[in-house]
């Protein structure tokens, strides 16, 4: 959610004003509406998050009470140790990292290379191919999941990493996003590089990619978050700690005893959110940096 909001701001160079300047540029009524909308969005995102964190520190008997308790008193951090003792948390974590790393890497490489071919290399039928790729990958996951499952099971790939990773690697979003980015580059720079004797890969690596850094970071971040949060397919593909990621592991936590103790589940959820959050904080400055400045006269 916020990743996408941020993304649209990085691309906002083309004319979309950023949230702040947009609000400042309007009259008092517009401003009031702007802030109201911001507060609303904040609440929609923040309240559930707050509730997750608070619950993760509550004892079980403090969770289902009326009136609701907004602070975890008594403080009960034992939920966190319970997560790691009741399920093989570190194994799930490792699986998540492996799956996310490979799926995201493949997606990013495929997205960049296909976008490059579809925007800067000339070949007949280029636009048609682009439409076909988009159309094929616009088909919702849920429709293809059954046939994918049948195929992968037939290959004997259940409970294997390749069974989880490979079917997740198609990307239309990345192709689309990076293609638009590449097309928005000043074409004279690309022509200059071509005249300077840069071959296709050198052109991509030394000229096109450095100019597209913010978009690439945004795309990578969204991809990593999406892969990290991927649930349905890994859930179908794996049912034990050898290959299942954290998201699937959390469900095992939930079903282990008759009445779910939400404290440890929420603690697990918080632990699952943390790595992505950290990544976000580290990378967000990279996305905002405009790297095209000075390339061409404005």
């Amino acid at each position, binding site marked *: 959610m916020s990743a996408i909001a941020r993304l649209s701001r990085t691309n906002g160079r083309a004319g979309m004003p950023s949230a702040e300047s947009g609000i400042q540029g309007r009259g008092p009524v517009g401003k009031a509406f702007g802030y109201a909308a911001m507060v609303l969005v904040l609440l929609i995102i923040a309240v559930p998050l707050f509730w997750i964190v608070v619950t993760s520190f509550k004892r079980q008997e403090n969770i289902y009470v009326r009136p609701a308790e907004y602070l975890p008193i008594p403080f009960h951090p034992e939920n966190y140790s319970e997560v790691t003792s009741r399920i093989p948390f570190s194994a799930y974590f490792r699986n998540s990292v492996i799956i996310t790393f490979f799926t995201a890497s493949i997606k990013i490489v495929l997205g960049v290379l296909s976008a490059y071919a579809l925007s800067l290399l000339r070949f007949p039928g280029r636009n048609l191919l682009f439409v076909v790729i988009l159309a094929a990958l616009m088909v919702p996951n849920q429709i293809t999941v059954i046939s994918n499952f049948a195929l992968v099971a037939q290959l004997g790939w259940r409970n294997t990493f390749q069974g989880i990773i490979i079917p997740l690697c198609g990307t239309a979003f990345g192709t689309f996003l990076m293609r638009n980015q590449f097309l928005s580059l*000043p074409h*004279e*720079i690309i*022509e*200059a*590089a*071509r*005249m*300077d*004797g*840069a*071959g296709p890969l*050198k052109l991509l690596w*030394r*000229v096109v990619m*450095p*100019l597209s850094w913010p978009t690439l970071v945004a795309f990578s971040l969204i991809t990593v978050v999406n892969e990290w949060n991927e649930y349905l397919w890994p859930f179908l593909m794996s049912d034990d700690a050898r290959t299942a990621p954290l998201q699937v592991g959390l469900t095992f936590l939930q079903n282990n005893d008759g009445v779910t103790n939400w404290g440890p589940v929420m603690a697990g959820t918080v632990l699952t959110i943390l790595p992505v959050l950290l990544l976000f904080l580290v990378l967000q400055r990279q996305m905002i940096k405009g*790297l*095209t*400045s*000075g*390339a*061409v*006269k404005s």
Partner: protein
Amino acid sequence: MATVLFDEATRHYPKTPTPAVDKVTLEIPDGEFLVLVGPSGCGKSTTLRMLAGLEPIDGGRILIDGHDQAGVRPRDRDIAMVFQSYALYPNMSAFENMAFALRNAKVAKPEVEQRVREAAKILELEDLLTKKPGQMSGGQRQRVAMGRAIVRQPKVFCMDEPLSNLDAKLRVSTRSQIAQLQRRLGVTTVYVTHDQVEAMTMGHRVAVLKDGRLQQVDTPANLYDRPVNTFVASFIGSPAITMTRSAVREGEVTVHGLPVALDRATLSTASGDVVVGFRPEAWEVVGAGRPGIDVRVELVESLGSEAFVHGEPERVVDDATVALGSERITFKVIGKTDLDVGDTVRVAPIAQHAHVFDAESGARLS
């Protein structure tokens, strides 16, 4: 070192009614500085891009050193281009920008270093080599763009309005620098501009383009003295030539009511009406008693040593005279002038300086 030949080269962009470059035939000898001028949208950039291989050719041929360039990729043509927007690589320092092409060509490291340093010295860029384009001024970027072209020691330079984004003062100094540099390096150069002064001062020859068609290629002096048609006459020269359409009667034309005797041989080739043009210096101010045209002064551009006076001729009721476009007369006065806006002054054209064109075709008669 190379010769360039455009042989009826044509570029017709898809979904446009007329070709952007229409059968241009142009021979550029080795080492020449050729300036390409014309109004906006006349196809200058397209012509240059065709030569560089960035634009396909829909008809005719382009030859470099006698070799047809059809199917030769831009990187294999050995042409260096200076873009209007400079198109520097923003992620690279000035040094890397200049070295990029050499490294791609696998030139040995010490030689890359040496060639870049040499170019930097010529262009006075030595202090900037570690800076990135974002940290440079417009003039500095322009020089880096030039440097990137000259380190390659290419067969041909293509420059597309490289000075248009500089301020007036910098433009004047850079103009002569580029011209000198070209003379020194002796590299065949095609230089696009729509600036009069650049066209008249920088090149060995000037090619005038209009609507994708080549109008005239000649030395700046010949272009000014013997324009082949009314378009070239009015495009070249600043302030512009004053032109009037007139009927021909017994060796005379009528300019704003004033009969002017012209060369009979010239006039005899006219099929109908003619267009007569006089440059600003082809007018003289005459006393009130002598035949002339009374002009009400509208604008005086005084340059100190000389002045250009723009004015509207007082109405003359004469069917034979129709002014072309604006009915203004522009004439030059040597030295200081005490003419002021609103004054009336009597001027007369000097007949032997007349440019005479056919009114229908616009072609020069003589």
